[in-house]
Each structure stands twice: as C-alpha cells, then as structure tokens.
C-alpha cells in the first residue's frame, strides 16, 4: 500500500481535499478512477492518527524502541485501514469522514501500545499493598483515608470474586483494559460492564453505610 505521510497530506491542495471528503465513501467503495488515490490517502490519514496516538502515549513508550515504535505505527495504520473499509457502510456522516476514520487509527495504535508495554509483564491479580496517599490538609487526609478504608472493606463484602479481580486490576493496579481483556479471554466491553456493575454495588453499599449521599448522580462526595 502506498504510504503518504502527514506532511504530504498537509501539503495537499485544500480544495481538492475538501472535495475528496465528500467523495470518500464512494471512492473507497468501488474500483474506478480515484479509488487507488483514495486508498492511499486513507492510509496516510490513518498513519497520521496512529503516529499521533503513539506520540500522545510517549511518556509510556520510552520502553519501546524507535524501530518497534515505527513498526507499531505502520501495523496500527494497516489494521485501521481494514477496519475502516469494513465499516464504510456504517458511516452516516454525523461527523467529518476524517474524524470518523481517525478514531480507528487511534484505537488500533492505543491498543497495540498497551499490549506491547504489558507483553512481558505479569498482570497482578493478587492482593498487594497500595502506596501511601499524598494529600492536602490533615482533616482532608483523615476523611479520605476513612472513605478509602470503607471502600476497601466494601470491595471484600459486596463484590463477587470476578468483580474484585477486575476492579482491582483496572483501577488500583492500572492494568490497561485491553491487556486485562486479553489475559482473561474477554472483551473491553465485557470488562467495562463488570466495572460498571461493581461500582454500582459499591456505591449502594457505601450510601447505605452513610459514606455517600443518598442521591448523588454527579459524582462522589465522601
């Protein structure tokens, strides 16, 4: 596949690009004049999105060498092209085509970075001590510590073993959701549902115990 990169895309004639936006779906859907050009431009768009995403995660990616990083970007862009072409019929024009396409490049790159960073790491599913809290005033620290302690106890009392494993891995040990999904043989969607249900149980328990206000739809006020 031809590989036009970001700068080449940026240098393209804006009028031509504006016109192309209108025709993206048609040009990509059927062979004919402009099809190959549209494919090359789609790949360039998705390379840009993948490169952008990897740059956004740069703080996490020094552990990934430059060569591997570039491979990852190219791989994510290629996979995103396949995803975009497979989903073309679902594009309804509720956003610009470029915004719609970018999200596939960002998703594929982000997932691949997370997987790469955790490829040789154990996913901690055991119970390990948390680092000490850093806080503000002594009163706020004491209140927060009390709430944190109550949440810790509630995790043991009201969550199932599966819910405990998932919420602690995701929110305490910071295991990326895609990595945890891979290790547990499930999906991001399913894990987020587990997390959502567990949060509901914790909130209900802590509300009845007086740690949370009975009606609170905007957040947590311990």
């Amino acid at each position: 596949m031809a590989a036009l990169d970001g700068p080449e895309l940026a240098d393209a004639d804006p009028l031509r690009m504006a016109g192309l936006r209108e025709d993206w779906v048609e040009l990509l859907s059927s062979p004919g004049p402009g099809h190959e050009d549209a494919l090359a431009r789609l790949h360039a768009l998705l390379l840009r999105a993948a490169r952008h995403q990897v740059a956004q995660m740069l703080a996490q990616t020094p552990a990934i060498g430059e060569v591997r990083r570039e491979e990852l970007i190219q791989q994510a862009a290629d996979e995103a092209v396949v995803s975009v072409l497979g989903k073309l019929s679902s594009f309804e024009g509720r956003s610009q085509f470029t915004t719609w396409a970018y999200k596939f490049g960002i998703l594929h790159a982000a997932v691949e970075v997370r997987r790469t960073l955790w490829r040789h790491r154990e996913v901690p599913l055991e119970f390990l001590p948390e680092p000490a809290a850093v806080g503000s005033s002594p009163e706020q620290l004491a209140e927060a510590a009390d709430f944190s302690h109550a949440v810790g106890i509630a995790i043991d009392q009201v969550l199932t073993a599966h819910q405990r494993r998932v919420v602690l891995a995701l929110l305490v040990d910071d295991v990326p959701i895609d990595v945890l999904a891979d290790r547990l043989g499930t999906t991001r969607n399913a894990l987020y549902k587990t997390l959502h249900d567990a949060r509901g149980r914790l909130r209900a328990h802590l509300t009845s115990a007086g740690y949370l206000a009975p009606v609170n739809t905007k957040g947590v006020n311990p």
Partner: protein
Amino acid sequence: MNGPHRELTPEAALRLTLAAEPWLSCDDCFEQIDEYVERVLADQHMGMPAMHAHLAGCGACGEEGRSLLLLVAEDEGIDPGPGLRRLAAG
C-alpha cells in the same frame, strides 16, 4: 475472598466509586466518539450525558477520546484547551 482487604489511595477509592451514569458500553462510545468530539469542540455537546459519563469512567476510551479531540483540533487549527476542558467537565 478470605484475605485481608487492600488499603486504597483516596484517588483509587474515588475511581472505584465513580457514578458513571447513564450506562454506555465501550462499543457504543466508539460509535459516537467522532460526533461527540466535534460537538465538544463546537461547544454543542449538551444532550449526550452518557458519552461524558463513559469517558470519565473508562480510562482507555477517555484517553482515546482526548487524543481524537487533539488531532481534530490540530486539523481545524483551533486551540484544543477549551475543548479539553469541556470534555473533562461534561
């Protein structure tokens, strides 16, 4: 579980008890994220509370949503700051 409970940081306790309502799945968030980001940048995102709740409650979707907003803002030549603040505030 029979073992002792874990001591949590205040930040972890807040993440664990976040009220991420109304419910939205990661797949549905992905379906709508392009439209939502453009609306946030245009300050016309009211009426999509489930998107805000999901992006606050799901670290991966939140990270990808912020990244998409930055990329689109760069394309449009606009300052992403207000959009990022609206994304965080809902």
